[in-house]
């Protein structure tokens, strides 16, 4: 059977000016993942290398180029799963690391858990020698502008007990 590596670069109302950058990025990622398989890597190696490439690409809402929370910070989530034994690893609310998907794989391979979050995930990353970036290193101008637009038009989600349903400008996911 022919192997297959399939990638996505996020779904939502992606604006016209970002279409070509997204298509270029997903094509590069699919080829990168397939190359990993062709060179004897596992399906885990293939999906990790494809996602890592897109985490470096500011056209995508992951790693460098992530959207911002209300404080203007990047907080990232990732998960990875292997079909042969249903082993899985994930991280959430992590900051200042370039490749959340690789940290998720370390959780799967080096801990008895499936998900590590926030400070615990951060400490685990440090313990595995993953470089911790300077605060703000993953923030792009595009993301800052999207947050400003959202604050002006999207309403404030910080109200307790009353959630205002804003129209979220730009991309979701």
């Amino acid at each position: 059977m022919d192997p297959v590596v399939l990638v996505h670069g996020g779904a939502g109302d992606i604006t016209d000016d970002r279409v070509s950058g997204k298509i270029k990025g997903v094509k590069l990622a699919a080829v990168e993942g397939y190359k990993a398989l062709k060179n004897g890597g596992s399906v885990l190696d293939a999906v990790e290398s494809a996602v890592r490439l897109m985490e470096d690409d500011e056209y995508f809402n992951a790693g460098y180029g992530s959207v911002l929370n209300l404080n203007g910070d990047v907080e990232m989530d990732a998960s990875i799963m292997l079909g042969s034994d249903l082993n899985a690893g994930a991280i959430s609310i992590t900051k200042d690391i370039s490749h959340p998907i690789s940290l998720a794989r370390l959780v799967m391979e080096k801990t008895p858990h499936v998900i590590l979050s926030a400070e615990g995930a951060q400490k685990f990353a440090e313990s595995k020698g993953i470089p911790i970036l300077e605060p703000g290193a993953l923030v792009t101008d595009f993301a800052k502008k999207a947050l400003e637009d959202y604050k002006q038009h999207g309403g404030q989600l910080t109200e307790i007990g009353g959630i205002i349903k804003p129209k979220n400008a730009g991309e979701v996911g």
Partner: protein
Amino acid sequence: TVGAVAVDGLGNVAAATSTGGINGKMPGRVSDTSQIGSGSYADNNSGAVSTTGHGETILKFCLAHSICKDMENGKSARLATKESVEKMTRRLNNTAGAITVSKIGEVGISFSSKRMAWAYVKGSELHFGIEQGQHEVECVEDE
């Protein structure tokens, strides 16, 4: 959000998904992407899925797992992906997308959002698209 799924020549599958979340989220908000069964799912008995879109909706619907279970019950990757995405959007009124490979190498790509960038390599062909219904093919350049 970005994601990848893969199947090798023996039917082994894997899925991976990574995201910065949703624009203007509250600090501490956890997305569907880190939840196995919502953002990613992989099982050699059916296939592998990575999802993207309105996270809270994908989380409530357990979209990735839903697609794998449909494949386990005999649906093709294409049909399982399309029907689960449509069912979720109908039920919860928010949009999302998913990519799927089955254990026998089928491909499923579906999104109810306006656009979703996708690409896959099979043999020497590179397939890609971003608009509804768009499917372009190129040759993968040899190394």
